[in-house]
């Protein structure tokens, strides 16, 4: 089966100003995103992640290169019907309630009238937005906006879900909740493309990552492969004494191995935070 998304030698120049100065946002990018995995697209601000996704979705035209999405050579309406998209910094019609918005998006995405109510409630439930769904979107917090954005992206049960910074502006508890939603999508066999600056979370939930810099691809691979340092090992020891340490060092040296560092394992700030805090009020 073909890749969920494939991008070949993609280049995008934006013209800026009246003099037509060119800004190369994406530079000869080639990338394959396999199906059924969570794929992290990483890189510093302005490296061209969002632009790449918009080109794939047909919202912006490419200057050069080719794409394919779910087996189609451009984002046809058939391909878009099977895709869900949460744009970065999402903003929705603020006079609609959360439920009205998700319903509107479900209708536009071709959900059959008979399945509409169930699909809307499922998506709201998945995004933990059932309670706030009757409120107008204008009253939502940033985290709620991201979650209602997630709900509208998955309401039509798409095969491919593209999330552009779903955790921007969301507190750690909310981010963890979004992480679990992504995990749930993977369990259902969906493909998820995730842009995020939360590297800790990306490391935990992504199967593969690609890192971009200045429009170019600098690294791509399975998280296990790109992160493991196969020439180093970590041993975690309990009830260590100076004598035990000296003995261990001597034993290792006898086999030609060398102990290079001894530290205390740390828990992450995120873990600590989540241990101490129960949750935001609208979570």
């Amino acid at each position, binding site marked *: 089966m073909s890749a969920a998304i494939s991008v070949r030698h993609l280049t995008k120049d934006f013209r800026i100003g009246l003099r037509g100065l060119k800004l190369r946002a994406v530079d000869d990018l080639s990338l394959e995103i396999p199906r059924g995995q969570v794929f992290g697209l990483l890189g510093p601000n302005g490296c061209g992640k969002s632009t790449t996704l*918009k080109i794939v*979705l047909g*919202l*912006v*035209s490419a200057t050069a290169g080719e794409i394919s999405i779910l087996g189609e050579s451009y*984002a046809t*309406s*058939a391909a*878009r*019907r099977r*895709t869900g*998209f*949460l*744009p970065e*910094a*999402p*903003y*929705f*019609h603020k*006079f*609609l309630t959360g439920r009205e918005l998700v319903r*509107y*998006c479900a*209708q*536009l*995405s*071709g959900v059959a009238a008979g399945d509409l109510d169930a699909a809307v409630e499922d998506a709201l439930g998945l995004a933990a937005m059932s309670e706030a769904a009757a409120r107008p979107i204008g009253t939502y917090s940033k985290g709620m906006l991201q979650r209602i*954005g997630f709900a*509208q992206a998955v309401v039509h049960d798409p095969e491919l879900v593209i999330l552009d910074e779903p955790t921007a502006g969301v507190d750690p508890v909310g981010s963890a909740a979004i992480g679990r939603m992504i995990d749930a999508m993977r369990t259902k066999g969906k493909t998820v493309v995730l842009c995020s600056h939360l590297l800790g979370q990306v490391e935990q939930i992504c199967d593969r990552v690609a890192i971009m810099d200045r429009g170019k691809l600098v690294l791509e691979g399975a998280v296990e492969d790109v992160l493991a340092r196969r020439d180093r090992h970590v041993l975690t020891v309990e009830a260590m004494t100076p004598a035990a340490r000296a003995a261990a060092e001597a034993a290792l040296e006898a086999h030609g191995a060398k102990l290079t560092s001894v530290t205390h394992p740390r828990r992450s700030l995120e873990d600590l935070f989540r241990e101490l805090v129960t949750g935001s009020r609208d979570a």
Partner: protein
Amino acid sequence: MNASLRRTLWISRVTFLEAVRQRFFAFLLVLGAAMVLSSVSLRVFDFGHGELKFIADFGFGGMFFFGSVLAVVMTAQLFFSEIDNKTALTLLAKPLSRAEFLLGKFFGAWAVLGVFLVVLAGLQGLVLWAREQELIAMAEQSGKIPATFSVLGLGQLVLMQWLRLGVVIAIVLAISALARTFLFAVVVGSLAVVAGQLQWIAQDAFLRPTDSQAYAAFLWVSTRLIPNLQQFNLADALVLGSAAVEEGALIAVGFSGLAYLVAYLTLGALIFRRREI
């Protein structure tokens, strides 16, 4: 119902809701209504046809002017609020064509202007009818026969004005599809409306013989590119039955309006297809 038509209707429904919840709509509606109602106080002391016509001209003038402002500013605003707030990004990533999106905007805005016209014309009709009753009562005493106000004529006027505003909305959408900013769309859209109202001058000039080929070509292009918006005011005369308007003339204006409307929407959809969101 066809899926494409349904998507268009959903877009127009949300567009309509967005528009009627705006203060701008309420503001212009109140201004227009105030103008219509203030025409009650107009008294020309000939107690007859002149007075009703004076009231009608004043009220319809307000409806015409504020309707045009609403059609230009609100349409551009409805379009650019989706682009600037990036809601278009969410919507156009769905299985929805750009043409359906633009048509949805069109029908939403057109429906809002329909409400605007019906409310103001209804008020104007009440004002005219009430004054007519007074005049009839006076006429019985003085023996003068006043003009009669025609509800059918009023309906025809509303239809004609609605069609005129539909053409304006289609023009503003085509301009918005091309424009980078809301301000540009409003300024160029307003100029287009003024040009449309004055188009008959160019058309008159065109009928006169001229030596200059370039001038003739300019007139030919401008009289076809820009619709004659003045022609829709033809129906104004029907309200008081003051002038005879042939059915054929009305139908011809209707068809020409529809043709311009379709042409500008098609042009807008073609431009919008290439726009980067």
